[in-house]
């Protein structure tokens, strides 16, 4: 036991000696890292605060409009309730002088069942890599979704609280509120994000080149993310909040 303990420590200074840091260093010394479970090492200050549990929920981050730059922050806050879904995978081609270069474009939507959704789009030579990177992008673009009522405030909120419009390039998507029981009346493409956001009843109206799946999906996401920008009467009440610097030190 003692020997083992010393062995671990001797490796320390011994390492710097075997050749120099720059050139002659053999890579066999430290083979670990692949078998172990990877612990998240935060890179940004926000990441460090989240890891130390000084910021406990995503809502605190949204309150101050802090940009989320690490996808692990989302993992940490929302964790197990996140669910990914591949929307669509399509090959896209680029013409080079010799041949055509085909890459795969993956659309991944991510949601938790509590009012957060995200959409990630990524192109890559291999499908699995595209999906993997699109998941990370989806996590970085997670937005909260606010739902409201059409008429009486009975039961759970089920629709967008007001009419919203989202656009992406030429595509315009209007979301119009409807009474309970209408269901989602829309093309298949925006239907998915609306269902994932927990919106049960909605009319949609779209304009522009909706054949372009990417733009159509992004426009509907844009519409959903605009909901919180609208100041509805239930937000009129004044609240006092502390600046994040004060709150976390």
């Amino acid at each position, binding site marked *: 036991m*003692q020997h083992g303990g*010393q062995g*671990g*420590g*001797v*490796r*320390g*200074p*011994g*390492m*710097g*000696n*075997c*050749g*120099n*840091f*720059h*050139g*002659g*260093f053999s890579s066999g*010394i*430290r083979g670990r*890292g692949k078998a172990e479970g*990877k*612990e998240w*090492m*935060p*890179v*940004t*200050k926000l990441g*460090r605060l989240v890891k130390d549990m000084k910021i406990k929920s995503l809502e605190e981050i949204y309150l101050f409009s*802090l*940009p989320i*730059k690490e996808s692990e922050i989302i993992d940490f806050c929302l964790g197990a309730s996140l669910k*990914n879904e*591949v929307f669509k*995978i*399509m*090959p*896209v*081609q*680029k013409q080079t002088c010799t041949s055509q270069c085909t890459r*795969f*474009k993956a659309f*991944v939507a991510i949601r938790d069942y509590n009012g957060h959704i995200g959409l990630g*789009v*990524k*192109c890559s030579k291999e*499908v*699995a*890599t595209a*999906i*993997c990177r699109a998941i990370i*992008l989806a996590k*970085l*673009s997670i937005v909260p979704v606010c739902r409201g009522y059409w008429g009486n405030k009975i039961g759970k909120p089920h629709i967008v609280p007001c009419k919203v419009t989202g656009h992406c390039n030429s595509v315009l998507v209007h979301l119009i509120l409807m009474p309970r029981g209408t269901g989602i009346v829309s093309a298949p493409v925006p239907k998915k994000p609306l269902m994932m956001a927990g919106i049960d009843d909605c009319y949609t109206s779209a304009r522009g080149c909706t054949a*372009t799946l*990417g733009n159509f999906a992004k426009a509907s996401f844009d519409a959903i993310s605009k909901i919180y920008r609208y100041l509805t009467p239930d937000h009129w009440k004044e609240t006092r909040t502390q600046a*994040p*610097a004060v709150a976390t030190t």
Partner: protein
Amino acid sequence: MAAVLKPVLLGLRDAPVHGSPSGPGAWNASKLGGIPDALPTVAAPRPVCQRCGQPLALVVQVYCPLEGSAFHRLLHVFACACPGCSTGGSRSWKVFRSQCLQVPEREAQDAQTQENSLAAEDWCEGADDWGSDTEEAPSPQLTLDFGNDASSAKDVDWTARLQDLRLQDAVLGAAHPTALSPGLPLFLPYYICVADEDEYMDFVNLDHAHSLLRDYQQREGIAMDQLLSQSLSNDGDEKYEKTVIKSGNQTFYKFMKRIAGCQEQILRYSWSGEPLFLTCPTSEVTELPACSQCGGRRIFEFQLMPALVSMLKSANLGLSVEFGTILVYTCEKSYPMEEFCIIQEDPDELLFK
């Protein structure tokens, strides 16, 4: 794309330093935190902060002799750990380099390490067969001597120290064996071990992606090869899209992608290589000040990574250092002196002021 990428070595945190090792074993080691070890002929640097005048704490000590050079080379990075200065920019950081000749040490040690040097020669025999320069053959042998010698010397030291360890644990700061000036800020010391970046490059876990792909195929009822043929039928309305990150910038995203293979790296070493920028580099990088002693060019040597920030803990609370990444540039000709470092701040820093 055209330039050949220089190999990058990653530094990772290893075992904690026990007691206070001295002798060649101490200054031959790369470590983070602790007290700076000095080369035999050089005094240990004890700098003070330019902003507040407090003594600086050692962040990292890197032992990095150059290839083909007969000098031991030690680089110390110091930072001010006061709360007011932790985001102070380059004025709270100092980098020192010291070096001394290797040769005289070797003669003294040779007599003691007969068996060890035999083992060392066996190890290096293969190296000779590969047609390496005769210059290089002595240096690995030389430094191995130190390694083995240090370990044998250490064996004796540690059996004694291990007994003390339990008693000292509770009074870590106070009962320190070597005489420390009481006001010196100190981070808990750990050794740094080295690995090649290539080992970690391709490690991306694609299992989840594959399972999602299978679900998609089941749902849509198409197989992989059909996906490809689809492209020939539709006339590409969809085009290749460049990723646009909503929050943060492209440079940061590339930085994250590059370190994703090994997130716990705390140091990237690449002598005269390219640094990995955290945020878009400002003009500071293109207009590096020349070496003040010889007027020579300064080149990139290594950079400290953000993972180090969470690893720098101190025995008494209140010491912390914050940064995005620190790029250390050293003089090409390698004279012993103070070096230049560029600090790229954490991109979230401005939000929390």
